[in-house]
């Protein structure tokens, strides 16, 4: 693949768009299909748990 388009790293938000809304959807054996994950809860928890997240300092590349 060429790097003609973007010199920057891949943005998380764009990855999430594709991994949460794109890709083949099959019913796996474990009840862990992403459709089951409550995306509203993600936002609310992220809001409240941000202090912990900062302390953990996961330190990802942008």
């Amino acid at each position, binding site marked *: 693949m060429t790097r003609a*388009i973007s010199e920057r790293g891949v943005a998380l938000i764009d990855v999430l768009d594709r991994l949460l809304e794109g890709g*083949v959807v*099959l019913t796996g*054996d*474990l009840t862990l299909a992403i459709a089951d994950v409550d995306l509203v809860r993600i*936002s609310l928890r992220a809001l409240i748990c941000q202090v912990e997240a900062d302390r953990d300092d*996961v330190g990802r590349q942008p």
Partner: protein
Amino acid sequence: MTASRYVYAIGRALEPADLAGLVGIDGAEVHPIAHRDLVAVVSAAPADEAALRARLERLDELAVVAEAHHAVVAAVATQTVVVPFRLATIYRDEQRVGEVLHERYAEFSALLDRLTGTVEVGVKLYAEDRAPAPVTPSASGRAYLQQLSQRHRRRDEKWQHAAAAVERVDSSLGALALDRSRHRPQAAQLLGVAGDNVLNAAYLVPAGRLTEFTDLAHRLARDEPALRLEVTGPWAPYSFTEPDHGDRS
């Protein structure tokens, strides 16, 4: 050692050597499961299902899983055409994966044929960020309502202009692409960038026309002062994995 398998993508004619050194979720080694010419790219899934589920509900931990998943897909996509899987598809054991390949053989084969020689390009458009005039305290309730009314009207106009510009860009790019797909607009809070995301689209483009496509996108954006363009990719074809994706809306 868990028997369950996390599936990243499906490809063709992949040998273990092609996946050597690749690691996926929680650093598990990536390896192939073959059925005829189809190959599922998998790794051992995290043993604790409940814990994984909880992780996926935290944005920061979801990010780690998503990036690990994407890294595997992207690496394999440099070697051969792949059909990427959505996040968190897990099977009980290797045999089950083989069965799925067998059951869906025709569908996956057709998909791989269709996607061969193509790449996905992401195109995002943002409406220029003209901050609305602040509402000033008014002498009377009626005057205040008048201000609000004007504000709402100006905002509606802004959106109408932006929508028309988006349609122009989208239809021109769509003409050059094999297929197109739209994701929901990205929330500004998550972006920290200027302007509202008014188009978050993916286009399926023949690999050989990639430069032509992105050049066109930049040319179109230059003609639309109300919009700001961002191009991402090339991506593995995440947005074009539905067998009958002929939707051009």
